[in-house]
């Protein structure tokens, strides 16, 4: 049985201009100790779906209108956002690392305070015990001179160091699942490599499952075992990393793989093939496949019928497309 399973999750935003179906029927599951990648471009709903799991959607304008989030035999959506149940899950059993290490740490509290807080609340540790563990955690995430640095403030650290601390905070209560939402977009490539290696070592050590939410296809190819590809609020393709990258079947996935430059490939060798058009505006979307206006494989059926649901195509590979495309790369 999977550790976390999201079924048909729908999160809508009520805006002045109309209804935005940011997440529209997403199903997703994560096994124990698994590393799962969730990829998609900005605005496709990947962050919103993860925030919905923890019920961190501000309401209004947001609303989780349907679906199930099954975790440890319970449907988390049956509990209110401010309930004791959700408070005992957030940060303790499911932890999250956010995109901006600059803004997700409190600038007026010391690192030590921010690290010990969740351990005191969730694990009922005494301040001394929590402090000792905090020193150990900082050492584990690679911050030198940990004991002294506990009394420092976030602005005294570099971006990479702050993200290391976020990893430390997230793992402080030994969560079952760690959700990393674009953990490395704000940092340089060599720092990105350091942080991702660290994250992988840490989840391995703590037996934690990891969900990496990113727009970077390379990152998921390097770290994820299984991948979900999202486009305008829905999962369009999912499968093992090899299935997605070597035998992509959804036109969007195929398009994404063709439009990124490969390392070491020059323009004389291959011209990039961009996906035509722009990502759709999510306000008042038609019921058809949202990728239709940009799709090179579209047939009449795509115009006539509502969005196709995910269909099993072998192995652990699922695709939401009427066409049966198989492109080997």
């Amino acid at each position, binding site marked *: 049985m999977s550790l976390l399973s999201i079924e048909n999750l729908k999160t809508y935003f009520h805006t002045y201009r109309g209804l935005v179906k940011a997440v529209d029927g997403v199903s997703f599951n994560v096994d124990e100790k698994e590393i799962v990648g969730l990829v998609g471009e900005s605005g496709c709903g990947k962050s919103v779906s993860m925030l919905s799991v923890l019920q961190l959607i501000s309401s209004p304008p947001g609303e989780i209108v349907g679906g199930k989030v099954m975790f440890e035999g319970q449907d988390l959506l049956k509990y209110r956002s401010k309930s004791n149940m959700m408070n005992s899950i957030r940060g303790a059993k499911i932890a999250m690392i956010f995109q901006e290490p600059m803004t997700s740490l409190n600038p007026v509290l010391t690192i030590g305070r921010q690290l010990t807080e969740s351990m005191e609340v969730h694990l009922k540790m005494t301040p001394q015990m929590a402090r000792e563990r905090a020193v150990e955690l900082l050492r584990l995430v690679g911050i030198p001179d940990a004991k002294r640095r506990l009394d420092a403030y976030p602005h005294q650290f*570099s971006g990479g160091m702050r993200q290391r601390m976020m990893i430390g905070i997230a793992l402080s209560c030994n969560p079952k699942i760690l959700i990393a939402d674009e953990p490395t977009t704000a940092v340089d490539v060599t720092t*990105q490599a350091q942080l991702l290696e660290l994250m992988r070592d840490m989840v391995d050590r703590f037996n934690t499952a990891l969900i990496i939410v990113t727009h970077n296809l390379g990152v998921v190819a390097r770290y994820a075992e299984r991948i979900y590809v999202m486009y305008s609020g829905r999962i369009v393709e999912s499968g093992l990393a090899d299935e997605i990258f070597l035998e992509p079947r959804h036109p969007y996935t195929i398009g994404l793989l063709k439009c990124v430059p490969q390392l*070491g490939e020059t323009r004389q060798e291959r011209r*990039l093939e961009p996906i035509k058009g722009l990502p759709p505006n999510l306000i008042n979307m038609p019921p058809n496949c949202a990728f239709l206006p940009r799709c090179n494989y579209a047939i009449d059926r795509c115009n006539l019928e509502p969005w196709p649901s995910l269909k099993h195509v072998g192995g652990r590979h699922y695709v939401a497309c009427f066409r049966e495309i198989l492109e080997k790369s």
Partner: protein
Amino acid sequence: MNRENSTNVVELLNLKMYFPITRGLLRRKVGEIKAVDDVSFTIKKNETLGLVGESGCGKTTTGWCILRLYKPTAGKIIFNGRDISSMKENQLRPFRSRMGAIFQDPYGSLNPRQTARTIVGMPIIIHGMKTKGYDDRVEELFKLVGLDPSMMTRVPHEFSGGQRQRLGIARALACQPELIICDEPVSALDVSIQAQIINLLEDLQEKLGLTYLFIAHDLSVVQHISNRVAVMYLGRIIEIANSKELYANPLHPYTKALLSAIPVPNPVIERKRTRIVLKGEVPSPADPPPGCPFHPRCNVAIDDCKTEKPQLKDVGNGHMVACFRV
């Protein structure tokens, strides 16, 4: 001017750009940030030179020096055979129209209160090139970058990120420049839009015979678009080679680490790659380490590296590297 020189659009000779660090009420100078420290390279006509490095390594400062938005501390900037490094504003004017710039942030680099038409046409007006054909020229620029001229009366917030970057490109092309400094032109865009902009830049180069300095931190994008790539670290160029060669045969330990840090979107290749994870972080340019700036993080450093600065040396085929261990 001999014939060989005439093909160089830009030539940098020992360019240095230091920024003072001041302190106190009297703003005493207490130190210097060596943003660009002894950089030399040339860009030939119709060529794309890529400039890569991590944030704070001085790549943007180098670009701004060429545009003469900064007055360099020392060194020469030879643009079309003339040294522009210490020219005054009025002398620079004719050169300014020969250069264009595209910036990273498609939101911050366009005036939100101006219409698209004004934004694109402004360089023409500023350089006193407004003639009867002005309106036609603006329309032509819109078409050139793949924007519908009917959008001319819109203001920037009505455009998407990719379209705004197209506006930025149209503006850079307005005065028919020879050289365009592209400063991270695609890093703020989604991957599916990035490819559109990269292809547009490549097409324009062929059509108009442009020369690019392409500044970016994403090595796979830079390698794709550039003929030659220069790698910067802490204000210095540590390796420069043609793009294929740099990928196939990187010589500097930093270049090797940089290449291995970039994940490739193919799990099969990923499993075979060796990863070099650098220790520590980039030191502050206010207090760079003595000797080779990379030595504190280098895994092959020897004693010489701690005291002496390695200079760029040619290892054949125009491949230059600044490392004692090569």
